[in-house]
């Protein structure tokens, strides 16, 4: 029987190794898998390369992981926001590396990794500082830049609902990078507050098919969202 559920976040992140590359879903706080990140901090892995649109805000989640000194490099599009002082301090002190990637190129590099495409050309960033040192080529009279696929050892993402196969739904703009990251990591770990009985998600509406998901944990019970008739005993 296929059942990707793990007992708790600690069990789900236990084998993440020092030096791992870790994709973290979310756009700002929307879709950030905070409980999985907390478990990763607790677990202790360091020298991580983190791939995420932002570089954490406030003092929780990714910002806490960075503050704990576990991240040696960020790959992101927008590490600067009103309350992203944790990353800024580490960066100014030379204690964290940064690969800045245009947001659409970041998304497409992740998508390409998940789809088995090793590299692609795009006009985005051609002729700018962010394309320096990259091969350029003209297509249809437009200057384009060669960009490489971006996969990872692990993806940590948050879903709004799941079944035991790992079929996922998301909530509003909390979806963002997570469906892409799920396809591009060797091990995809999902946190969700709702697990429903297999067969009760409409196949027409599933956003991430379960084949892209390896592990799931239930992180809170969000009772207002529960439908007991559709819930799996022991999870809700």
């Amino acid at each position: 029987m296929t059942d990707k559920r793990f007992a708790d976040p600690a069990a789900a992140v236990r084998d993440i190794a020092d030096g791992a590359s870790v994709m973290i879903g979310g756009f700002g706080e929307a879709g950030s898998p905070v409980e999985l990140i907390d478990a990763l901090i607790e677990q202790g892995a360091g020298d991580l390369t983190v791939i995420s649109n932002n570089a954490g805000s406030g003092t929780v989640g990714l910002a806490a992981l960075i503050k704990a000194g576990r991240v040696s490099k960020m790959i992101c599009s927008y590490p600067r926001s009103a309350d992203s002082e944790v990353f800024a301090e580490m960066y100014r002190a030379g204690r964290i590396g940064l690969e800045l990637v245009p947001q659409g190129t970041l998304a497409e590099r992740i998508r390409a990794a998940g789809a088995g495409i090793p590299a692609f050309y795009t006009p985005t960033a051609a002729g700018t500082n962010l394309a320096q040192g990259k091969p350029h080529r003209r297509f249809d009279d437009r200057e384009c830049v060669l960009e490489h696929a971006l996969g990872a050892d692990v993806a940590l993402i948050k879903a709004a609902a799941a079944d035991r196969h790992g079929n996922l739904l998301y909530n509003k703009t909390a979806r963002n990078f997570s469906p892409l990251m799920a396809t591009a990591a060797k091990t995809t770990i999902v946190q969700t507050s709702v697990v429903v009985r297999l067969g009760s998600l409409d196949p027409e509406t599933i956003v991430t098919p379960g084949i892209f998901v390896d592990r799931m944990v239930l992180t809170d019970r969000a009772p207002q969202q529960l439908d007991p008739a559709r819930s799996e005993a022991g999870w809700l």
Partner: protein
Amino acid sequence: MTPRTPQGLDRREIAHRIARDIPDGAYVNLGIGMPETVAECIPEDKEVILHTENGLLGMGPPPPPGEEDPELINAGKEPVTTVPGASFFHHADSFAMIRGGHLDICVLGALEVAANGDLANWSTGADAVPAVGGAMDLVSGVKAVYVMTRHCTRTGDPKLVAACRYPLTGRGVVNRVYTDLAVIDITPQGFAVRELAPGITLGDVTDRTAAPLHDARSIRGE
């Protein structure tokens, strides 16, 4: 002689001027900051569909206080709402809309715009932490790139220049610039003034632009 300080349009008036040029049915992305004002100025009789790159087409205005949803935000990470017909999607689809040429118009802010259409709007080159977001994708993919900006910086330096000094967002990407003083097209001949704000003379604009300006008002019979 003390040069006269021209009183051009305020931020909201520039936004209204831009909204006038956005056709009914257009799919539009508004950059963070000043361009967001355009959303408030689109007339009721036009259905303009707003895209936000974090995964929403059909973005509505901010919610009333108390009704904010932390999982329903715009690219500036501010709470928003949806309008009827809205859709959510992941980042690859969102940037397929941008990079695949499906969006009709984006309106962006600028540090500098050059006469050849180069845009600099993501970095002063001296930022403590560089950040680019979706700006380079928008300028490379959206069908029409409009810039909304004050004509000069706070210290009075022209933002419309012969060549950008700040790091580029894209080369030759801007189609039109809307400022407090004028509407200016980027043409193969450089900056071309299409329209002056009320009470503004061509000389006012020329004095505050660090590149040659062509008067294109006659071309349109204005």
